[in-house]
Structures are given as C-alpha cells and as structure tokens.
C-alpha cells in the first residue's frame, strides 16, 4: 500500500509537470480549430506550418543563429577555459565566479542590459545583435562544460608532449584537444539547444524582420487562436528534448567513466 502511494505521488507530480505539454501535443493533431472540442485526427496544421513563410523565415534564423552562436561560443569558451585553468587558484576562482554569473542572472536582465548596450554602442538591431546576444549567453555554458575535462587532465601530459619534441601548438592539437573533446562537444550541443530555446533575450535584442521561432510563436499567440502554434510548439519541444537527452547521456557517461578511472587508480 505504501509503495502504491509513493508511486501514485510520483505519477501526480509528472502529471502536473507534463499535462500542459501533452494537451498541447494532442491538440496539434486536432482537426477542429476550437480549443474545447476534439474534431478528429489530422496532420493539416503541420502541413500548413511548413507553408507559412513567416514561420519558415523564423526557422531559418533560428537555425543559422543556433549554429553560428554555438560554434563561435564553443571556440571562445574553450579558449577561455584553457586560459582559466592555467591561472593560479585565487584569480581562477574569481574569473570562474564571474563567468558563472550570467548563468544565474535572470534572462530578462541579460536581455535588457544587452539592449541598452546595443543602443549605447549605436548598433542597428537585427540579425547581428541577436547573434551577439546568443554568443554572450552561450559562452559561460561552454566554459562550464570544458572546465571539468581540463581538470581531469594529467598535468604532465602536456609537458610530456613538449619533451618528445612537440611545439606548444602541436601538443595542443594532438594531446590536449583530443582529451577535452567530449567536454567541447557537450558544451557545443548545450549552446545550440539554449539558442534554439531562447525567447526573452532574443526578444529584446532583435530588430525589424528578424525573428526566431520563439518570437514567431509569441506574436502568433498574441494575434489569436491558431492551432499552427500547437504544431510548432510540439516540434520545438521534441527537438529540444532530444538534444537535452543527448547532452545528459553524454554527461552521465562521463561521470561514470570518471568514477571508473578513480576506482582503478585506488
């Protein structure tokens, strides 16, 4: 009985968390326009979705910005992580905490402050500003996922490469990079996901004619009931879910490998 209650409680929690999403997914297949009634199964909203030029343009911007911001923030973040890992303990802790701050900062504050910065610097709002904003909020996540890999490195491995005749650059490519690659890939995927996912910061930093999918959903929702929103939201939910599952599997595999390594060392 106790066991049953426990399970029932967990079920209630998940129901509470996921019911809205399941309702949304179900309604994306509803042939009736009404939100209240079920009019039979259909895929027409999905079809219409891919014919809507506004949405297709938003999809294009979303993907371009996600790819570019992920790649650029991965390069910046990896370089930053390597630099930070070489610092002495005290400055390293300070820089790490500063890098961590944007992660904890509410999106709306990041968004508004970036907007004020762009106005101040007199940069025209549009694709460029949104891209810069995405790189800005993605970079700390890359640093945070590369750092643990750098900490796991045997400190003498780089010296060993130099000792065997490698130039610092060669040693970085052949010895350091392959070993921290899992962290870099995880950081890149995370950055890509966060970029696709973002609404608040994008909303404050974009300009006329440039919107990503979240902004498209928002503006469609304001204009009134449109079941295409359900279809679009369903697709976004699924793609972000898949990406996050990949990131999480990678991270937990990493923790397992680390535990195993520690176990063999003892």
């Amino acid at each position, binding site marked *: 009985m106790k066991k049953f209650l426990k399970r029932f409680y967990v079920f209630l929690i998940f129901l509470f968390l996921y019911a809205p999403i399941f309702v949304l997914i179900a309604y994306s297949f509803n042939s009736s326009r009404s939100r209240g009634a079920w009019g039979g199964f259909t895929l027409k909203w999905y079809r219409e979705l891919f014919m809507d030029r506004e949405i297709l343009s938003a999809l294009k911007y979303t993907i371009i910005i996600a790819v570019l911001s992920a790649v650029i923030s991965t390069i910046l973040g990896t370089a930053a992580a390597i630099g930070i890992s070489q610092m002495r303990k005290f400055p390293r802790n300070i820089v790490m905490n500063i890098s961590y701050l944007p992660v904890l900062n509410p999106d709306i504050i990041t968004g508004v402050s970036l907007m004020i910065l762009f106005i101040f610097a007199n940069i025209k709002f549009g694709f460029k500003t949104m891209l810069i904003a995405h790189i800005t909020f993605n970079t700390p996540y890359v640093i945070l996922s590369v750092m643990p890999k750098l900490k796991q490195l*045997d400190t*003498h*491995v780089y*010296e*060993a*490469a130099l*000792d*065997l*005749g490698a*130039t610092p650059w060669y040693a970085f490519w052949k010895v350091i990079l392959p070993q921290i690659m899992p962290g870099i890939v995880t950081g890149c995927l995370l950055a890509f996901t966060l970029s696709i996912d973002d609404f608040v910061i994008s909303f404050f930093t974009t300009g006329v004619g440039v919107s990503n999918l979240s902004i498209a959903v928002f503006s469609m929702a304001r204009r009134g009931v449109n079941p295409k929103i359900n279809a679009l939201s369903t697709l976004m939910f699924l793609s972000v879910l898949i990406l996050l599952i990949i990131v999480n599997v990678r991270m937990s595999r990493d923790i397992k490998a680390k535990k195993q390594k520690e176990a063999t060392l003892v």
Partner: protein
Amino acid sequence: MDEKLLELVDISKTFDTTEALRDINLYIRRNEFVTLLGPSGCGKTTILRIIGGFEQPTTGRVLFEGKDIASLPPYKRRVNTVFQRYALFPHMNVFENVAFGLAIKKIDPRTIERKVASILELVNLANYGERSIESLSGGQQQRVAIARALINEPEVLLLDEPLAALDLKLRKGMQIELKKMQQKLGITFVYVTHDQEEALTMSDTVVVMNDGVIQQMGTPEDIYNEPKNIFVADFIGESNIIDGIMIRDYLVEFSGRKFECVDTGFGENRYVDVVIRPEDIKIVKEGEGMLTGQVKSVIFKGVHYEMLVESQDYTWKIHNTLMEPIGKKVGLNILPDDIHIMTKGGEAHE
C-alpha cells in the same frame, strides 16, 4: 667517459618567496648513471625540470656540451623525460604513444614501425602495440613511458622517481632492468629518487640533496662509507650518532672512554659528532669489549638481527647475523676505521 656532457653552474631557483635551489654546481659525464637523492621537497625534481627545460633557473647556467641551453624550450633539447606518473597519452594506444616523438620528426612510416617494434621488444612489450593504455598494469605503463622516451635516442634520459608507484618486487626487477638498459644503450641517465637503497644499487654517482643544497656527491661506496655530514650519515643507511670530544688527531673520546680513530685536522679538545654504522659494532663477551651494555630489544630483519644495546649513556643500534638474548650483558668493540668524526652540525674533514 671523462667528458662533461651536462653541467649546472651556480644554479639557484626561487619560487615566489621560497628558495628551492641554492648554488647548485654539478656536472654529468657521458654514459654516467647519476642519481639525485634526497627527501621530498629537497629540490631534486626541480633540478630535473631545469635540465628538461620545464623550469628556468633564477640564476646560473645550464651547459650542454659546453653551450648554454638555459633559454632553449623543452622541444629543442636532446633530452627526454620519464615522468613520475608516466604521463602517457590516454587517447592513444601503445604504438601511437611510443611513435609520438618520431611522428613529429616526419620519419617515414615504415622506419617508425620498425623502430617502435624493436624498442617495444627491448622493454619486453613486443605485440602490445595495439593495446590501450588503460588496459596495461602499472609496470607495463612504466615500460611504455621508458620506450616512448628512449626511442628518440636522447643524449640524456631524465627519470623522475619512475619506480615510486610500483610494488616492491616489481621495483627491484625494474631497477636491474633499467641499469642493464642504460649500460646496453650507452645513454646518460639522470635519476631522481628518495629511496637510498635504489640510489646505491643503480648509480655511478650519487648526489645527496637537502633543503635545495647539494650535501655530498660521490660514488655509492664513498657516500656510504665516508658520509660528509650528519644529514648524509643519517639519510644513507642507518647510523649511531653520539656526542664526542676530539682529544687530538687520531684520538676521540665518547661514552666515557677514549678511542683510536683515523681522523685528523679537528684541532684539540673540540666537541664533535661521532657516527658509527650499526653493522660496524662487534658484539663480544661481557668484559672483553671496549664498552659494556645490555641488550634491550631484538628484531629479526631477514638477513640480520637489529638489536638495541643500552650502555651507560647511549643506546646503540647494532646489526648482526647472530642474535643475543634480551637482557644479556655484552661487550662492544669498534675498529678505528669505522669511527667517523664530524664537526658539530657541519662538515667532516677530509
């Protein structure tokens, strides 16, 4: 053999405010097996890192075949290192690890394969090329690290406590293997260890260090038989150290009795430290020895017994293959040659 291959001149090294090395002068001849021996933190690894190019000396010069190489980066030095925890590349297999140095030099693949195969054979790891690093035991990883360094045919091989992580039996075996390898290849070895027995077994020259200063340099026999100061006497092997008075040349007084000795030049009636090795004290019948004492404890050590014998003002540590029962009164004899005199807190006289 007498050519100076590598020479450190007036080297000192300061990290922030701590002085790691002071006035280091030492040279290493071609084909020599030199061991830097000392307790942890004595600066021996810092010397190795300066030779390897990973640290810059604060002052002084590093001469290689007479030329100053202090500013040369590690990858331009004809020196290779075996790191303490091996520092193998975990994402490469055994072959790739060993071939790393040759691959940089853009040597053709067939020559690389041949060389790697022959060096793996030398370290008894033939057919291990495809194995991953993780799948190897500590001893095998150790030998991969040695092969990876040796394949570059360095002028000098630096080894930083390479056997510290191995168990006793494996360590003994590797000591002999390393020594053989060194003789066979004719490569100069600079070996860092805190294990005095390892140093005495393997080296041509031992450099004993403490607190960033060289305490004594010499052959293992010299270091053991003629320790220059109390630190060396205490660190190398075991010692009885007792206060004494140097009456005059060839005569010293301790434990309430005068002893003949072979030391000179201390002046007359000076306070000195007297050092006597545990195996140099002979046990004889009560009344027939120079000193009298009572056996306080006996420990079996394998080859010999270690006994503590209490005389009137000192408890002597004595090694002997024969055991005396606890409580028995015995006589102790010490030969003049086995008495080593040192000035208080300072150096011994030549």
